[in-house]
């Protein structure tokens, strides 16, 4: 399943629907079209039903014998629990405004990737099971009986939706495909159908505290390495407190920042900033994950994983929580956290107040949790940071709005404010591809796995093409973002659609620009690449024929 070359893939996109109706068009189950199923031991570790070895390629998915009943009952239960589901099953008029808003449709042309049709995959069953017209006039009203083929089709297409909610912005009734996808995935889980790329992080996060399963001592080691690297670049040894009690703030960021390049440079940026401020804070290995793959699994799992944040704040006696750069993490915090777990806030928690500027974050009065770009922009506005933006002059930067902070929060101007304070060269991608209309990295909602790389590259076309535009027009060579999944997924995306553009977190740029007290003259950036003017330093190599 080699991914075709970019221009070949682009030429292969055809928006003409197949000759057969969508109910008659079979689904392609060849490898590359699906994510690997969750391993049985993973499902067992979190008590999910029907753990077993199976493959989507097989005819027999080893469903429980009463799977139809399970799905039906699960559907009934969710219709009673979620007005959104009931409403979104009923009121779509199939106007098609959503069709070409989905990155997966734009890049694939597969009509089942039109949000309206993705939802119809489920509505067709709803109409059959729950409406009178659907029961009697089956075919004409777009209803069908739940068969194994339908369930299999759900697995393919509800794992080709990144829950980015771009369609819901354009829908005249606000129908949100993310809600439909979430419900479909919950129903699939009831039958033991899930993907490993989501369920393993869920299981890890539950036990070890983070998606990657980094155990506490290893976590401490990695953080220590980063402290070393910061010293290498700046000559300053920053502190990095872990699991310490009695600090004002607990800082929680996605574990991708600890583990993966280029997230680690963002993490270094955080450490440097906190050191600069002499911030009274700690991090935690128990709550070492900001992200929450429970959001992509079930509401119960989301609550269970999220509950660690307040639990750990209480145990350590922290008064409020500072959150790192992560997309879906902030959807959970903004739209779910206080509803699910607000009751578990300890009495020590207060409305967050920036200890350096005195700013009270009233907009986080309920959650007690502040986004790092809110925190940093506040410092900048009050002139509390000594910055040298010219240390980012080798970078020509654009900014990718992550779906969730954009469309489930509205955190649009704060990160831009931060970037513009630390970079002299900032360029926006075209209108229609940024801010609330931003395009997904095509790896959100747990789809950032390599076995579906072609699907990801197809879905990445709109973002990649907008990036290509600013690369050609403004020589952009760096795309900043505020999401750990983006920092992983946008790299292959940029390599594919706009080769030459690198990806960074916003606080990597802050780290580069921030002048630490007592630091040595910087000759390289946090990636340990030479700054302009220092290219030859420690470098004996001379170009041939020079």
């Amino acid at each position, binding site marked *: 399943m080699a991914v075709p070359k970019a221009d070949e893939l682009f030429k292969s996109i055809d*928006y*003409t629907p197949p000759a057969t109706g969508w109910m008659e068009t079979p689904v392609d189950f060849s490898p590359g079209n699906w994510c690997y199923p969750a391993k049985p031991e993973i499902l067992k570790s979190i008590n999910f039903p029907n753990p077993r070895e199976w493959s989507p390629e097989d005819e027999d998915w080893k469903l429980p014998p009463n799977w139809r009943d399970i799905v039906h009952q699960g559907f009934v239960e969710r*219709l*009673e629990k979620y007005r*959104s589901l*009931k*409403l979104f099953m*009923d009121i*779509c*008029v*199939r*106007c098609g405004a959503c*069709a070409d*808003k989905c990155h997966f449709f*734009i890049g694939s042309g597969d*009509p089942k990737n039109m949000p309206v*049709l993705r939802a119809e995959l489920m509505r067709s069953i709803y109409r059959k099971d729950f409406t009178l017209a659907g029961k009697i006039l089956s075919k*004409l009203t*777009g209803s069908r009986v739940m068969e194994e083929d339908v369930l299999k089709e759900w697995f393919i297409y509800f794992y080709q939706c990144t829950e980015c*909610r771009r369609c*819901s*912005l*354009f829908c*005249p009734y*606000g129908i*949100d495909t993310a809600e439909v996808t979430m419900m479909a995935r919950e129903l699939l889980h009831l039958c033991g159908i899930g993907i490993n790329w989501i369920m393993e992080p869920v299981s890890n996060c*539950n*036990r070890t505290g983070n998606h990657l399963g980094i*155990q*506490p*001592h290893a976590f*401490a*080691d990695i953080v220590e390495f980063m402290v070393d690297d910061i010293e290498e670049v700046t000559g300053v040894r920053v502190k990095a407190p872990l*699991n310490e*009690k009695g600090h004002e703030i607990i800082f929680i960021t996605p574990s991708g920042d600890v583990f993966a390049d280029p997230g680690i440079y963002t993490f270094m940026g955080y450490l440097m900033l906190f050191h600069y401020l002499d911030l009274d804070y700690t991090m935690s290995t*128990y709550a070492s994950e900001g992200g929450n793959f429970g959001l992509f699994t079930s509401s119960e799992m989301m609550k*269970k994983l999220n*509950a*660690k944040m307040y*639990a*750990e704040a209480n*145990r350590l006696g922290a008064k409020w929580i500072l959150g790192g750069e992560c997309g879906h993490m902030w959807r959970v915090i*903004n*739209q779910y956290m*206080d*509803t699910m777990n*607000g009751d578990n806030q300890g009495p020590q928690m207060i409305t967050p107040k920036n200890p350096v500027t005195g700013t009270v974050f009233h*907009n986080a009065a*309920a*959650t007690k949790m502040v986004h790092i770009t*809110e925190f940093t922009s*506040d410092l900048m506005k009050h002139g509390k940071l000594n910055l040298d933006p010219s240390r980012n002059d080798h970078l020509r930067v654009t900014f990718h709005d992550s779906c969730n902070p954009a469309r489930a*929060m*509205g955190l649009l*101007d704060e990160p831009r*404010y931060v970037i513009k304070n630390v970079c002299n060269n900032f360029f926006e991608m075209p209108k*229609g591809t940024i801010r*609330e209309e931003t395009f997904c990295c095509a790896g959100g909602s747990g789809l950032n796995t390599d076995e579906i790389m072609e699907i990801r590259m197809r879905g990445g*076309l709109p973002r990649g*093409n907008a990036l290509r535009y600013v690369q050609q027009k403004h020589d952009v060579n760096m795309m900043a973002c505020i999401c750990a999944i983006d920092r992983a997924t946008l790299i292959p995306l940029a390599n594919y659609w706009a080769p030459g553009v690198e990806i960074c977190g916003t606080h990597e740029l802050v780290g580069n620009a921030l002048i630490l007290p007592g630091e040595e003259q910087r000759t390289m950036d946090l990636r340990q690449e030479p700054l302009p003017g220092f290219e030859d330093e420690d470098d004996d190599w001379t170009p041939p024929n020079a």
Partner: protein
Amino acid sequence: MNALYSLLFVFLLVFIPLFGVGLGHLNTIFGVCIPMTAFVIFILGFAYRIFKWGKSPVPFSIPTTGGQQYAYDPETFKQSKWDNPTNGFQTFVRMALEILTFRSLFRNSSASLHEVKGEPVVAYASAKWLWLFALLFHYSFLVIVIRHLRLFLEPIPFFVNGAEFMDGILQIGAPVLYQSDLLIIAGLLFLLFRRLADAKLRYISLVNDYFPLFLIIGIAASGIYMRYYAKVDVIAIKELTMGLATFNFHVPANIDVSFYVHVFLVSVLLAYFPFSKLMHLGGVFLSPTRNMPNDSRIRHHVNPWNDPNIKPHSYEAYEKDFGPMMAEAGLPLDNPENAKGTEEA
């Protein structure tokens, strides 16, 4: 195929009153019984659907935010109040703009693929036709409904006379041409044409989509026929309709059969309405991605089925699990015993 079925079905519906009244002389059935029944179905059905939606809670606050949030410093970061509301009033304005001006549809764009100098280009163009014609259709429908109130109210309220006056203000022809008659037909034909012409839309369109379009076209066409061609006896019709409104049923003779066709199609629409996608009329008011303020970080939102028994994997269990390694890495332990590990235990 789905379009054809729907068209045929509407034709069939036209024939029912033609035969029923034209040949069968069942004027009372078609003039009173059927419309009254349909009206009752509409009212009860509509209420039932709203009640049924309302019965399910909104467990989470899930507005789709369409602009800058209410920031900690609203002066530096100007809130996009109508697209990302945080309080009741702002949310009300967002809903009003959505319902009265179809704001989300106004955002509509169309994506297309091009090759420019051998480079792939994805282009987005503004696409407001759907917005425009949808607006024309819905507002014309509203004006027509208001105009028709004159048949059910005595004395006729000022806003009905006003709507009628404005609608005929161009003073073309006799009887005066109502612009809404033209515009609703234009809107409907565009919506139908779009559904048939766009391959993507044709692919997803069901009988549920074509049938109401053809039905409403039939209603509009029969109404236009009555007014401008058959020139039906409006006085007699008002006698009948006032009878319906006052439950004092009376069916005057000499009402043209086209009236019964019109009334029958309207009856079908009323009875069909609560069980169809047309319920978006009621549903849009309840849509949680639009009618909720983005304030769940500021104020507590209650989930009635939130399960307090769901607890995180506890720190105690975690420390037990990893105690020895934590001790070795110099991480503080709540229970020093855990440094020894659990192997022996």
